[in-house]
């Protein structure tokens, strides 16, 4: 657990949090969309550009060596942080790209690329791809597109009223035709933590690849991909105190080495001629062109910062905030929250609608009180349609979030309906 003193020391590490917004103290409760950056992350990038910037894996000169060292240290640190081997981490620009790399890798294999090794990845008519109704569009549309490209069938696991997955039909929806089971570790709207073990077990039973969207878990709790036993996973740097422009794909080593590459270009081939090409093993085969080098270095620093705090402590702190926010929101009259109640089964991301006031208007009112929340469908339209809401307001926390932030938010929320004349 983090003490109050520790949390306010942490807050001081984030320069942006000290500012005033619209005449109020900033209560940043939009960490589910993107997190703020501690000074050490900002400094790591500045230091890189000021002393070590160079092309990596390409030059023999001293700067290139320094840059390559920094870059690969970022990979090793990040891999350790998520329970992966170093060569199981592929850099992407964001989690969305990471999920697309898997989908297009399968599409390429299905179109006959990648030779015999890639045969295991082929899919076509008669096969099925399964996602869930709570997915972020990043873990939904790539699979729908893959289904279109290959003729496979797209299916989904539905949501129950309480914000959990409805798994009664798991055995019939994920069946022997299923080649991919893609699901989120934690819902970015409901905050629900999904039962990974149960879903992975079913994927294993039918021989499907288990693809995990770990965007909302890696920043908020200890995550170990080897222990979770998933085949692929995706997460984003910018949500875990790191820079924008960097994300990662985790894949089991033997899968990554066999999956056909997607983006092609420099630094990912061994030889190319005008009529033939040989690709390098992972991770390089997926890292065509100049990579987000400074951003990897920045992410390495973020991972170091989180490791020092201890992800158990981070999770405990945020679990406390989750309980506080859920209880607080539920106390406000005229507010309908979606997502599970129970502590331990959710993260501190709380979405709700305010009776008679559209989410945009709620967000606008809160912003005028210095409270930054997100409004809209949060890139989860099917989920919102399931609960018959066009748009919700979402307050989401991170390690630097304090009870004071929550109180400022809850206080302002209590005034919304009065302001708009609906109570």
């Amino acid at each position, binding site marked *: 657990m983090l003490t109050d003193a520790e949390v306010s020391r942490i807050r001081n590490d984030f320069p942006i949090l000290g500012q005033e917004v*619209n005449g109020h103290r900033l209560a940043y409760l939009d960490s589910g969309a993107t997190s703020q950056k501690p000074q050490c992350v900002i400094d790591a990038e500045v230091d890189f550009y000021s002393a070590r910037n160079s092309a990596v894996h390409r030059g023999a000169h001293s700067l290139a060596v320094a840059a390559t060292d920094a870059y690969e240290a970022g990979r090793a640190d990040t891999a350790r942080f998520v329970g992966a081997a170093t060569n199981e981490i592929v850099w992407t620009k964001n989690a969305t790209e990471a999920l697309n790399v898997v989908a297009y890798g399968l599409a390429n294999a299905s179109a006959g690329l990648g030779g015999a090794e890639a045969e295991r990845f082929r899919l076509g008519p008669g096969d099925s791809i399964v996602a869930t109704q709570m997915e972020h569009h990043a873990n939904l549309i790539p699979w729908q597109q893959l289904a279109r490209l290959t003729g496979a069938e797209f299916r989904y696991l539905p949501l129950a009223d309480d914000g959990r997955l409805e798994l009664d039909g798991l055995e019939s929806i994920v069946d022997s035709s299923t080649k991919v089971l893609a699901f989120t570790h934690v819902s970015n709207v409901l905050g629900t933590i999904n039962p990974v073990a149960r879903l992975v077990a079913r994927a294993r039973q039918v021989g499907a690849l288990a693809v995990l969207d770990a965007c909302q878990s890696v920043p908020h709790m200890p995550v170990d991909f080897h222990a979770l036993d998933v085949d692929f996973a995706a997460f984003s740097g910018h949500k875990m105190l790191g820079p924008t422009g960097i994300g990662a794909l985790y894949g089991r080593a033997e899968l990554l080495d066999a999956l056909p590459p997607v983006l092609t270009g420099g630094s990912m081939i061994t030889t190319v001629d005008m009529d033939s090409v040989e690709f390098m093993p992972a991770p390089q085969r997926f890292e065509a062109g100049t990579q987000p080098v400074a951003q990897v270095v920045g992410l390495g620093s973020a991972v170091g910062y989180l490791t020092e705090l201890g992800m158990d402590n981070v999770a405990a702190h945020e679990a406390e905030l989750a309980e506080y926010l859920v209880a607080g929101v539920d106390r406000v009259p005229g507010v309908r929250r979606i997502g599970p109640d129970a502590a331990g089964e959710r993260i501190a991301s709380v979405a709700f609608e305010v009776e008679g*006031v*559209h*989410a*945009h*208007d709620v967000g*606008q*009112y809160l912003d*005028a009180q210095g409270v930054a929340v997100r*409004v*809209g*469908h949060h890139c989860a*339209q099917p989920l*919102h349609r399931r609960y018959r809401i*066009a*748009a919700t307001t979402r307050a989401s926390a991170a390690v630097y979030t304090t009870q004071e932030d929550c109180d400022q938010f809850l206080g302002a929320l209590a005034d919304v309906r009065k*302001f*708009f*004349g609906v109570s």
Partner: protein
Amino acid sequence: MSDLEQLYQQIILDHAKERYGNKPLIGDTGQGRSPLFGSSHQVNPTCGDEITMEVEIDPDTGRLAVRWDGQGCSISMASASVLSELAEDLDAAEFEEVREAFHELMHSRGKVEADEELLGDAAAFQGVSKFPARIKCALLSWMALKDSLAQARTAGGSQ
């Protein structure tokens, strides 16, 4: 008046409730509608707000008749309501003039004084222009009417 109060002027909150012109739609197969008919569905991708705007041009007078359905925030609903009221007294060319003035006002970042004569109740949206994220909300119905009007005129041309 704070920026927030300028944004949510009473006149806007009232229109958001009143929803002038929010009526059952005629639809493509509608009976008894003018031959000069157009319909446009617009979506705000950020929040999923949407509106369908139908317009008929009176073949004799050139006057517009507008009806709409949709859901959205108070700014988008109020805007559709104000627009429906305004449009009643306009023909297509006059609407275009008003639309341009409204468009300019929205992109003025609070630096242009609204022409109340021309804009009527729509002048109250001046406060929106200070909130770039909300401009799309205010313009949604105007885009839909522009689009449906173009269709209605094409329908006329193809007769």
